[in-house]
């Protein structure tokens, strides 16, 4: 298996002879060498297909709750159309601060430790840019969300994947982390609950990880965008709340998943004032501030939307059970995903690779799901199935997957 480190070292391929090939000489090699995401290729394939049910969507099926949309419309009518303070409206930063404290026990000073960003994505970009010097290694447990490695590379860092396994429910282990550390290791990116595996980490799980982080003086970017979507026995455990980790952690989250606000692009970062102020520097020169309408809506979501959020979470949990059961009934091994809205079944029993399985499932079974290999190390042999889709569609999709798996296994027999 090729590691990210090797990929990065071998990434000096020549520009291709396309019609616009001559322009490539202007491009920064850091950007030019980033490979198109595997998800993009699959997207094109799915877009050309008809009558399919898609389990490939990485966003809630709920539309943003009406009261949130209405608050935004009302604010526009009252003329809320101007820049806000760079770090975000003070009321919103205060609301974020007290929400985090109330929900996850992590306390941040709204004045100096909270930064409102254009989605969680911007927060991750800012954090990496603020931290990385060329050559720094950034540790990323995989399979994971697809943007950490490219953003790291653009910043001149070297992404190092840490493979996680179904037998561990795709949790990060202290051993695996320890084994990936070199003198160049600087940043660890965590994303739990995990897209694509649905894995979660408990407060106990964090303790040995925190020890390794401390021992090697790492700094952590903890992407907790799916925090609210945790279905296990214990509530979501923020890495920032692990012993001694608050100052070492840049907590990244946002409104997209829990409040069904993907298109608003509202996120935030919280952390040590010196780190947040470094990130704010980049933020103010690049985007100035997050859009005011989004900020007003986010404030409404935190002020009056927690009840509706709980209902949505309950609804995901019910569909989660349905899909996990459905996939197992279809003859696929599926670990218990305790967070986010993804199941990540193994398709190894079919003898197909993730890519072939996903392509054939699309063509023959009329169901779209994302092949696990696009999410990095350890993703091969798995399939990401989002259950943010109606119960009726999920039922039909499970039937179709069952028939398809049966057919494939019979071929192989």
């Amino acid at each position, binding site marked *: 298996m090729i590691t990210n480190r090797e990929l990065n070292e071998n990434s000096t391929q020549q520009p291709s002879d396309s019609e616009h090939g001559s322009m490539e000489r202007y491009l920064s090699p850091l950007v030019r060498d980033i490979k198109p995401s595997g998800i993009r290729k699959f997207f094109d394939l799915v877009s050309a297909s008809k009558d399919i049910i898609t389990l490939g969507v990485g966003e809630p099926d709920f539309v943003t709750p009406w009261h949130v949309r209405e608050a935004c419309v009302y604010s526009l009518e009252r003329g809320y159309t101007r820049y806000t303070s760079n770090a975000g409206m003070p009321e919103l930063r205060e609301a974020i601060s007290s929400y985090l404290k109330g929900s996850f026990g992590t306390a941040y000073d709204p004045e100096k430790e909270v930064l409102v960003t254009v989605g969680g994505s911007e927060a991750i970009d800012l954090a990496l840019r603020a931290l990385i010097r060329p050559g720094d290694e950034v540790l990323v447990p995989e399979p994971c969300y697809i943007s950490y490695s490219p953003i790291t590379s653009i910043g001149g860092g070297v992404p190092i994947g840490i493979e996680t396994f179904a037998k561990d429910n795709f949790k990060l282990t202290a051993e695996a982390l320890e084994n990936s550390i070199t003198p160049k290791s600087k940043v660890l990116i965590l994303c739990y609950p995990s897209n694509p595996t649905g894995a979660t980490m408990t407060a106990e799980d964090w303790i040995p990880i925190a020890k390794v982080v401390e021992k090697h003086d790492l700094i952590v970017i903890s992407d907790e965008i799916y925090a609210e979507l945790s279905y296990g026995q214990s509530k979501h455990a923020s890495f920032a709340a692990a012993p001694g980790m608050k100052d070492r952690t840049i907590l990244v989250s946002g409104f997209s998943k829990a409040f069904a606000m993907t298109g608003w692009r509202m996120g935030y970062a919280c952390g040590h004032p010196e780190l947040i102020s470094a990130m704010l520097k980049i933020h103010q020169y690049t985007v100035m501030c997050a859009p005011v309408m989004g900020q007003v809506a986010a404030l409404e979501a935190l002020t009056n939307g927690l009840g509706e959020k709980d209902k949505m979470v309950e609804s995901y949990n019910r569909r989660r059970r349905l899909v996990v059961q459905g996939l197992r009934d279809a003859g696929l091994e599926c670990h218990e995903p305790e967070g986010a809205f993804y199941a990540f079944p193994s398709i190894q029993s079919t003898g197909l690779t993730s890519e072939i399985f996903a392509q054939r499932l699309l063509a023959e079974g009329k169901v779209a799901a994302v092949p696990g290999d696009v999410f990095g190390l350890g993703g091969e042999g798995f399939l990401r199935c989002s259950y943010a889709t109606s119960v*009726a569609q999920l039922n039909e999709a499970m039937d179709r997957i069952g028939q398809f798996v049966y057919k494939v296994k019979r071929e192989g027999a």
Partner: protein
Amino acid sequence: MKETNKLKLDILELLEEDARRTPELLSTMLDIPEEEVQAAVQELEQDRVIVKYATVVNESKVNDEKVTALIEVQITPERGRGFEGIAERIYRYPQVKSVFLMSGAYDLLVEVDGLSLKEVASFVSDKLSPIESVLSTKTHFILKKYKQNGIIFEEHEEDRRLMISP
């Protein structure tokens, strides 16, 4: 006992969304053994908590002429029986779809279906108004139903998500 109530509430919520959901499906979604779900549904039916599994129909797509009226009715309560007797005299008519006892400016709100305006008008003048204790009626015809039982009839918020996203 509290646990049972939570289960029943969950079941009601899921059946109100879609009454055709099977006990097997409810059992999976709620992570409760199927027999327990079945027993709870049976109890809900016996206690008439679940009164009926009905279908919400957008009538305007079935019959354009059909009309529905909401009628405000003021009545004099009967000694000893209050509003019950008169309410029953009204709700026994098959064309009466619903009857609510209301607080405020009138007493009963009566929903009446008819094949035409005339049919509803004659129900009011021939049947409803002549009832002794009925003091007055005010008939409002429904022109269009946008939403009923929490269901929006003409949903404009279809799924606009990309088919695949990271």
